[in-house]
């Protein structure tokens, strides 16, 4: 064999190492290809991230803007007295407003005919708003005031370009084809402005007849109460369980069983926790449906494995010399753990807890099962009611909006996602800062 391999025919032609033969070329090409696959995979992943973020931002940011029509308006004392004596008070105010609006537009050189119905469709019940304002601020009668009136959601969408003349078929009580001309005219007169939509942040959910007025405020509060329950329950229970398993547990069947359980619970789909919450907390214990308390309990059970796993890691990171030193000066085992190990592990525990809370904040599926998708349009009155009264949560509210067909609600859903992600980014940033600042290498 060896002799045969050494024959001149089989030996490679002697040439420079710098010159690639066909086989080396092939191997190098395959090396480059493989490398390119890797880069392509990473680029695809990053592209998806970019696509996701840009979709969220482009579709969600408009939810934070709101078109308003600003009309300078002066009400004289005589007008006020006259209107307050009339039968249909708000209609008179609307009349004043329309006069003022068309005067303003004429002054800007724009002429257009419109009636009070059109104003109502575009700007809502103007007369009522004006009357309420002047009744509260009688001293401002006679002065010129620039009224900012929120435009209806269809006006808003027309100005943002998501609702066009072609989209409207025939018109209805919410919108007529001639309203487009009025909007254009008002825009030409420079009356339309874009302002930050505070109502989206502070408002409550609305019915399908007023999609523009829907806000995420009440559900943010619902999420807040849920997170409070999760924090108050899962932090002490999780830390206690970790301390037992890491510092005290003997190696026996019971502790093994606990370990297996924790590992499995971490992998159980979230919807199964929803079923648990429905069957145990609502069906069995008759806790109020849709209440943040129940949502918080379910999310606590879901978050516990996360917190236990991270807490155990940070307890394990505290070197044994600390424990030995404490025991050496006469501390009991319990004192060594609670006085020395736990404070040193605290930053790690806190970081893990914040990350667990962030996970719980974004969780939706279990909340659907315990009924947190109902239509809720109010803030709780008291602190206790905040836990027990039906409320929504941010992700459940987003789901609720996404399931409705109106395009305005879709925009709100994306806007809600921005709010949710802002919370998550904040929490994760705090976790990262805590870790950077307090992390100790022993």
């Amino acid at each position, binding site marked *: 064999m060896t002799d045969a391999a050494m024959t001149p025919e089989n030996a490679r032609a002697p040439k420079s190492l710098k010159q690639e033969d066909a086989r080396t070329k092939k191997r190098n090409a395959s090396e480059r290809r493989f490398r390119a696959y890797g880069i392509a995979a990473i680029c695809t992943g990053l592209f998806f991230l970019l696509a996701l973020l840009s979709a969220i931002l482009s579709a969600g940011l408009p939810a934070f803007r709101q078109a308003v029509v600003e009309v300078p308006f002066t009400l004289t004392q005589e007008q006020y007295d006259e209107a307050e004596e009339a039968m249909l008070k708000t209609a008179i105010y609307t009349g004043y407003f329309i006069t003022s609006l068309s005067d303003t537009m004429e002054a800007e050189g724009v002429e257009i005919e419109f009636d009070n119905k059109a104003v109502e469709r575009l700007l809502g019940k103007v007369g009522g708003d004006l009357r309420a304002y002047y009744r509260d601020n009688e001293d401002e009668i006679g002065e010129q005031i620039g009224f900012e009136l929120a435009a209806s959601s269809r006006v808003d969408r027309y100005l943002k370009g998501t609702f066009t003349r072609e989209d409207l078929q025939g018109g209805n009580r919410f919108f007529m084809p001639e309203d487009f001309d009025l909007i254009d005219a008002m825009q030409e007169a420079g009356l339309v402005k874009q302002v930050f939509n505070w109502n989206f942040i502070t408002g409550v959910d609305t019915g399908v007849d007023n999609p523009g007025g829907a806000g995420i405020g009440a559900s943010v509060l619902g999420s807040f109460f849920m997170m409070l329950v999760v924090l108050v329950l899962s932090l002490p229970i999780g830390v206690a369980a970790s*301390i*037992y398993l890491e510092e005290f547990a003997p190696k026996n069947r019971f502790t093994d069983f606990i370990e297996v359980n924790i590992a499995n619970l971490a992998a159980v789909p979230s919807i199964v926790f929803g079923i648990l919450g429905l069957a145990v907390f609502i069906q069995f214990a008759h806790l109020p449906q849709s209440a943040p308390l129940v949502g918080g309990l379910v999310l606590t059970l879901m978050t516990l494995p996360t917190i236990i796993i991270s807490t155990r890691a940070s307890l394990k990171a505290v070197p044994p010399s600390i424990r030995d030193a404490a025991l050496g000066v006469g501390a009991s085992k*319990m004192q060594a753990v609670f006085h020395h190990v736990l404070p040193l592990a605290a930053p790690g525990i806190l970081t893990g807890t914040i990350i667990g809370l962030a996970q719980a904040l974004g969780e939706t599926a279990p909340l659907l099962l315990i009924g947190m998708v109902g239509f809720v349009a109010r803030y709780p009155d008291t602190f206790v009611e905040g836990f027990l009264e039906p409320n929504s949560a941010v992700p459940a509210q987003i789901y609720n909006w996404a399931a409705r067909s109106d395009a305005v609600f879709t925009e709100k859903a994306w806007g809600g996602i921005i709010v949710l992600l802002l919370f998550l980014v904040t929490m994760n940033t705090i976790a990262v800062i805590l870790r950077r600042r307090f992390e100790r290498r022993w």
Partner: protein
Amino acid sequence: MPVIWLTLIVLAISVVGFVLGRRRALSSAGGDSRNLHSLPIYYGSNALMKSVVPAFGLMVLWLLAQPLFIDNRIAQMIPEAEIAEGSNIGLVMAEVRRTADGLENAVAAGLLDNDAARNGQSDVAELTQVLRDAGQVVTGQITQPVLEAAQAYRAMSGTSNLLMTIAVLIVALAGAAWGASEGQKTFRARNTVEQGVLALLIAAASVAILTTVGIVLSLIFNTVEFFRLYPASEFFFLLEWAPSFSGRGGASSLGIIPLLWGTLYISFVALLVAVPIGLFAAIYLSEYAGPRMRSIAKPLLEVLAGIPTIVYGLFALLTIGPILLSVFGNDGLGWMQGQRAVLTAGLAMGIMLIPFVSSLSDDIINAVPQAMRDGSYGLGATKSETIKQVVLPAALPGIVGAVLLAASRAIGETMIVVLGAGAAARLSLNPFEAMTTVTAKIVSQLTGDSDFASPEALVAFALGMTLFIMTLGLNVLALYIVRKYREQYE
């Protein structure tokens, strides 16, 4: 008395116990803590622990047992004839509870005085109206037996609450007194307190067991109930999913096979996206990338894992769906009818799983000893040949484990399929068609209707059981494979 007040009172009692216990111990030692067995704080904590723990334990147990006990007693009060055709005892009991709550609210709102609420002879129609005025949801007309049962329910809850308050307060006081009386200088307070704390730690660790037990029991009970109403053979083998929407009565076809098919198909598409991308990303990051690239690309990819699933759901429905529709829809190739399809949900889920696969594989590839790579380079292999022929085979069990974990994630994923996959159950091979999954049907069968007695609602528990067993099986298998692999190098 509301539970929150009771809690505060018990806490106040225990604080008093703490102060007393500490003071007694100190005075027994003549004011010098060096003469005590333990630090003074332990004598106080002893009293505090002995009043708080039993009192709260009793309260929780009582609150859990009370509805069970009362429900049983009330259920016996309701005559057989009262249960309407197609209804059952559970529905009537729900009505009784609602009425009892309504009476409570009406009394609280001052619309009804206490005697009228207790009067068994009161006019049913009038009372219904009062309850409506109090803002209570009352379905239809309350019947006489329901009203009587509700009044009995209310009376029993009232008595039970009173008894509980008294019992809890007595236990708290007795515990505080016992703990405080132990405040003698020879008493080994620290040992007692530490034993108590240890017991609490064990109890906290047992919450994990309780949760599992809770999950398993709630699934099993309702699944058994479901199979009593609906034949198991049809559930497992029927090729059709068509629940009747009336809620009760009517023939429903509740076969799990179309749902399982949808679940597996969507998960398969998701893995088809996630596994190649995730695996190649992991290989590149661990074998080729420099520390700079690694420190940038790895966290960015992991951002994908931190995004809540509802966001992916919305992304599937409102971004991926329309894009796919514009290419494969009627304006393009004409293969796709709606935005919701297997491919829509599968793609979104795949994106979600990329970081999951990549970071798990990354860990596993990094765990392959460097000596194996060096050996391969020494033989003249190129980097990619080393990876393909040495590193990947060595890491294969771990990678398979990672893929199985990702599959279990995909099967249990809910929000993406609820929003992106559609609602119709189909047995089809076409990835452009809408299909539905086990998780999506659990949500749709259990939301809205609070009647848990119909097979249409109970089937969700059987579906949940299937899901639980499937994901548990995959996880156990994955952990087994990963663990077995680890033993080779450690």
